[in-house]
């Protein structure tokens, strides 16, 4: 009996059995397709024929394709809308909540979080209606006398990208808000009391106490939202399809079009790998910038 209390030197391999089912799924549906995509990215393949090995040709073709380069630029614009704006708005709301106690906050919080739980398809279709030439947004603008501002938002070469981006802001700020509110609640109240004693106003309190304490949450929010901005597909597909022209084209739309419309699975795979590397690099960069300094 006493061996129960003895510290075990051997690893209990039976515990790995518990993760085995999930691990098999992971191999089958994540690692295997990823490896397959990687191999396919060095080939020319129409989806059903024999794969033809072409080395790095697909990659060099992608890099010299102006439309692909401009689609990556669009993704960076979307990062502002999907990531930076929601984080700023989320921080602002969290900051206000510390100072002002609002009655029925739980309800407001639920309402503000709602966009986050809606399917992107539902969001896309709803906003397409809102942005329509005769939709509620333009009707509202006309009503308050801003006829000159109203336009076909998603059909405009200048406004389509920011219009789609704004939908992303609307979807993501609920997520950052909840994340930051949760973070704020674990900040010891002593810190705020100390700040008050030192004579800090609301703004000084926000920058000296709230913001530094939320560093962990901000990193999580950044990684999550930047990743989403870069790999986003459904919202663009539903609202503009990359148009008008190529003004809202993003890499993931190219991947879809190449793989399913143009029979260029090899090229689509190489673009997929490039997008993965780009996301990986950006996430590493975020972690590097915000690393703990000793």
């Amino acid at each position, binding site marked *: 009996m006493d061996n129960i209390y003895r510290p075990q030197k051997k690893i209990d391999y039976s515990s790995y059995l518990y993760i085995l089912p999930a691990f098999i799924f992971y191999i089958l549906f994540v690692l295997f397709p990823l490896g397959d995509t990687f191999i396919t990215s060095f080939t020319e393949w129409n*989806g*059903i024929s024999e794969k033809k090995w072409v080395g790095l040709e697909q990659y060099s073709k992608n890099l010299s394709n102006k439309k692909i380069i401009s689609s990556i630029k669009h993704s960076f614009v979307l990062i502002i809308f999907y990531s930076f704006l929601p984080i700023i708005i989320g921080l602002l709301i969290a900051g206000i909540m510390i100072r002002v106690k609002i009655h029925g906050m739980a309800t407001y919080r639920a309402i503000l979080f709602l966009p986050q739980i809606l399917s992107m398809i539902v969001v896309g279709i709803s906003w397409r209606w809102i942005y*329509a030439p005769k939709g509620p947004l333009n009707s509202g603008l006309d009503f308050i006398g801003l006829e000159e501002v109203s336009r076909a938002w998603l*059909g405009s*070469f200048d406004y389509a990208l920011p219009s789609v981006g704004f939908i992303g802001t609307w979807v993501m700020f609920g997520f950052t808000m909840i994340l930051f509110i949760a973070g704020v609640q674990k900040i010891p109240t002593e810190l705020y009391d100390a700040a008050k004693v030192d004579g800090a106003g609301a703004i000084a309190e926000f920058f000296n106490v709230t913001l530094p304490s939320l560093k962990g949450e901000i990193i999580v929010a950044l990684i999550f939202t930047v990743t989403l901005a870069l790999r986003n597909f459904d919202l663009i597909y539903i609202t503009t399809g990359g*148009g008008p*022209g190529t003004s809202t084209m993003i890499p993931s739309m190219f991947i879809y079009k190449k793989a399913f*419309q*143009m029979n260029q699975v090899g090229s689509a795979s190489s673009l997929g790998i490039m997008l993965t590397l780009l996301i990986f690099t950006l996430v590493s960069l975020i972690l590097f910038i915000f690393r703990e300094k000793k």
Partner: protein
Amino acid sequence: MKKIFLLISTILLVSFGSKGETLRILAESGDEATIAAAASQFEAANPGVIIETNFLGWDDFMATIKLKMADNNPPDLAHGNQGFTVDGTLIQSGLVIPLDKYADQYGWKKLFARGALAEFLWSDDGNTWGSGNLYGISPVAEDVIVYYNKEKLKSLGLSVPSKFSEFEKALRVSKDAGELPIALGGADGWPIIHVWGLVEGAFVDPNQTRRWIFDAKNVKFDTPNRIKAATKLADMAKAGYFGSDSLGIGYDDANAMFIDGEGVFNLTGTWMTADFNSGMGDNVGAFAMPRWNGGVAGGGSFALPWHISSKSSNPDLAAKFLAHLMSNEFVDDLMRVGRVAAQAPTIAPTSNLQVEVIAASNALVGANAKTFYTDWATPGMYDTVTQELQKVIGGAASAQDFIDAMAAESLN
């Protein structure tokens, strides 16, 4: 446990027991009513045959059809799509069989004028299009024509144009009277292909356009006449004939607008006939687009081609079903479900609109003036042409930019 065993054995029995006489069909959902009608007639006429049908919407269908045909257990009969992207790939990979044997047996080639079936002809290696063996057939014609609001045209003091310049004048008069000249759902991109097809047809010889589509790499795109057509389209956009919001309006919304009385003209395909007819009654008419010097031209083709899988265990049965679709007896059924049959119908048209649509369609066939669809030309053409046309309509690119981008894509 017993119940489960019973259930499983029943399913197995049903699925394997009837295998020999089952015909599996995969179709694009636009043909759902057609296939439902044909399947029940065919089952009644051929006791013991069971027809299993599956339908997929356009995007899903086009994204998966090649994989489904490459499957080990593909449908016996399925739609493809004209061009190298789908049909060419299916033939190159040996996934579908030539239908010449059946065409001779059932007399399909005699139904149409010489050369009319060129869009279904391929070399056996799938690399040459427009000549060779018959890969695919369809009983349905789809033409891009001009629908118009009769009341509006009359109140503007206009009549059906017989030359393109008269059509332009009608647009100008409509615009000056504060009407939207053309209802266009440009947000979806592809509806502009139909507009371009009509303007191109007005200036470019249809034979030249078809030759380019079959062999884009080797046939010049940037001819003087085509540059003239592109300039005309850009001018039409600049003049505001498509309204200021057309790139923010989807195809369905544009058609709903037209039905609700917004827009004098609507340049679209005959597949909309049934919808316009039920929405507008006798207030809608149709004509084939007149060319600059008279005569007609326009986009259009047969509907999606039917293919028989090379792995089908019973290709003769599949061909027999196709023969039913292509038969003279089925023409009237096609009309009843609102499709325009490629063969002349035997029953009287059911509406005034149908009379005019059939007249327009016959005029196009008679003049051998159908120019297919621009996006058939290369696998990447759909993207290029929709994007570049949106730019032209939105004033973000000139006619020359459009011509240059298209000529470059032609070489891919």
